[in-house]
């Protein structure tokens, strides 16, 4: 894909649909139909979560006797440390995001602006991993983490993800788009590379760092398979996505409680998404890369 201006936020004129009145009405009808397909499952989750157990199996969309019982019983169940899961998820996603921003921006700046021996080879290696199927790394990384004694630990969940190359490519691309004059001026004034990086480049990159930060946080908050492997065996250490699977095992037919748990997992993400959706969608459109 080309990289120049194609912000989906600009109302580009793509005349794929002819703009006759009938076509317009049809277009809106279809848009609304699909919007319902995407939204109704979320509403149904929320509706079930506030229904009393007597109403769970009924098809009514407006609860007759709305209640918060499902939430209280999920939170008060001593075998299900939901609050701890929430804390675990928040901690892991936050620490992971901060580390990715630090590690990847440093590397990205070197690959964007510096000349050094082995640069081409290393960068080609990073690129090559993009086509490597992730499944290859699952078993060996599990053994490595176990050898470190990191099973059922936060660092066991966090560390392997820091090897990712998406953030490096994302930020490198951004650094290369910055005008060089500012950095050159800093060098003329006698600034070191480090000073230029911290005082000139990073402040200019707040937007890109924020976008990468939000995407990284979402991906980490949602991650399931690796967390299941590393912390699935210890209830106290589970993250919310893994915990929700545990919840399902425990509450098989307590749909209301299960949906209360699902709501807990989705609400923070949906809020974050609503606040930042323009930047998220823009970066997906321009990089076409899964986080």
């Amino acid at each position, binding site marked *: *894909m*080309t990289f120049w201006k194609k912000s*989906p936020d600009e*109302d580009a*004129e793509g*005349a*794929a*649909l002819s703009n006759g009145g009938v076509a317009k009405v049809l277009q809106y009808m279809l*848009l609304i139909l*699909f*919007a319902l397909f*995407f*939204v109704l*499952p*979320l509403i*149904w*989750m929320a509706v079930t979560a506030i229904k009393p157990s007597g109403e769970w199996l*009924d098809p009514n969309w407006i609860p007759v006797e709305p209640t918060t019982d499902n939430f209280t019983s999920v939170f008060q169940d001593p075998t299900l440390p939901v609050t701890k899961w929430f804390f675990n998820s928040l901690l892991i996603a936050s620490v992971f995001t901060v580390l990715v921003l630090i*590690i990847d921006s440093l*590397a990205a700046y*070197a690959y964007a*602006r*510096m000349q*050094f021996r082995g640069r081409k080879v290393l960068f080609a290696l*990073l690129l090559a991993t*993009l086509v*490597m*199927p*992730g499944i*290859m*790394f699952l*078993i*060996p990384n599990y*053994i490595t983490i176990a050898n470190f004694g990191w099973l059922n630990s936060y660092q066991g969940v966090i*560390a392997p993800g*820091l*090897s990712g190359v998406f953030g490096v490519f994302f930020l490198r691309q951004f650094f290369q788009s910055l005008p060089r004059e500012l*950095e050159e001026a800093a*060098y003329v004034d006698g600034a070191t*590379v480090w000073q*230029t990086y911290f005082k000139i480049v990073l402040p200019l990159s707040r937007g890109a760092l924020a976008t990468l930060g939000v995407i990284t946080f979402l991906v980490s908050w*949602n991650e*399931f*398979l690796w967390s299941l492997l590393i912390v699935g065996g210890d209830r106290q250490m589970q993250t919310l996505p893994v915990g*929700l*699977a545990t919840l*399902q095992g425990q509450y098989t037919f307590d*749909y209301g409680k*299960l949906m209360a748990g*699902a709501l807990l997992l*989705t609400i923070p*993400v*949906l809020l*974050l998404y*609503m606040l930042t959706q323009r930047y998220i*969608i823009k970066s997906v*459109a321009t990089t*076409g*890369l*899964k986080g």
Partner: protein
Amino acid sequence: MSVQAQTNETVIAPVRVASGGRINLTPYLFILPHLIFFALFLAWPFFFGIFTSLFEFDFLRPERRPFVGLENYISLFDPSSVQFRDFWRAMKNTGEFILWSVPPLVIVAVFLAVLLNGRFRGRGFFRMIFFAPYTLSVTAAAVIWWWIFQPQGGIVNHLLDSLGIGGPNWLSHMPEAWIAITIATVWWTIGFNTIIILAALQDIPTSLYEAAAIDGAGAARRFWHITLPLLKPVLVLVITITLIASANLFGQPYIMTAGGPTQQTEPIIFRIYIEGILRSQMGSAAAMSVVVAATLLIVTALNFKFFGKSETE
């Protein structure tokens, strides 16, 4: 995948090779933190995975880890072995899910992108809604649809009941289980494909459509003769990404069907998880991973070869 190496890289950070010819360490200090993790968790496991696949590697019993050469691979291709049936059933299941999921995930995404293209009120709102499920965890998406498809109390069967149709046991019958998993997956991920295709649509110059309209081409002909050919590179990319994503199916059947009925929705990642983690047969699981990865690489290469090269990586 389009984050490609640009050819005209400019290097401006002053490279201070001291007069003695000492190597400047600064660039290496910048890349070092990432490189450590990259080496440990992406480069090393590439070799360590292949290495492990040459052993009978019982994770729980360190004394049972003898070198077995290619035995783990041979048993994957030997119909009389224990692994053979489970492995190829899971491969077949994964292939089935790819056939179920990739066509709607691509075709419907093109349709949605065309719907979202152009200038109209509420465009940003609809785009936000279409993409929203993609930001959820797979467990959230799967639990929601598991509930929707419950035979008793599930809203889909309520709906079918009101139409006088007896709804099936979606999650414990074939092929209904695949249909349920596919719908959940389409709901969860199609926004991603839609946004990428939408971005490509917006790159198509309007003048092309205007010229075609003057020549009397209707909307359908403009779509077939202008939109689709110009979308081709991005479609190849989207098909490839979707194919790989579907080959990595795990969370949806883990939550919705537990791989059932009778392991018929147990995909290959699920099988590797069972073999390596639950049965702690890491050597055999590593061999399975290598075969799967090789298959995926071949499929990806063929995809690009037959559907033409895109300018992306």
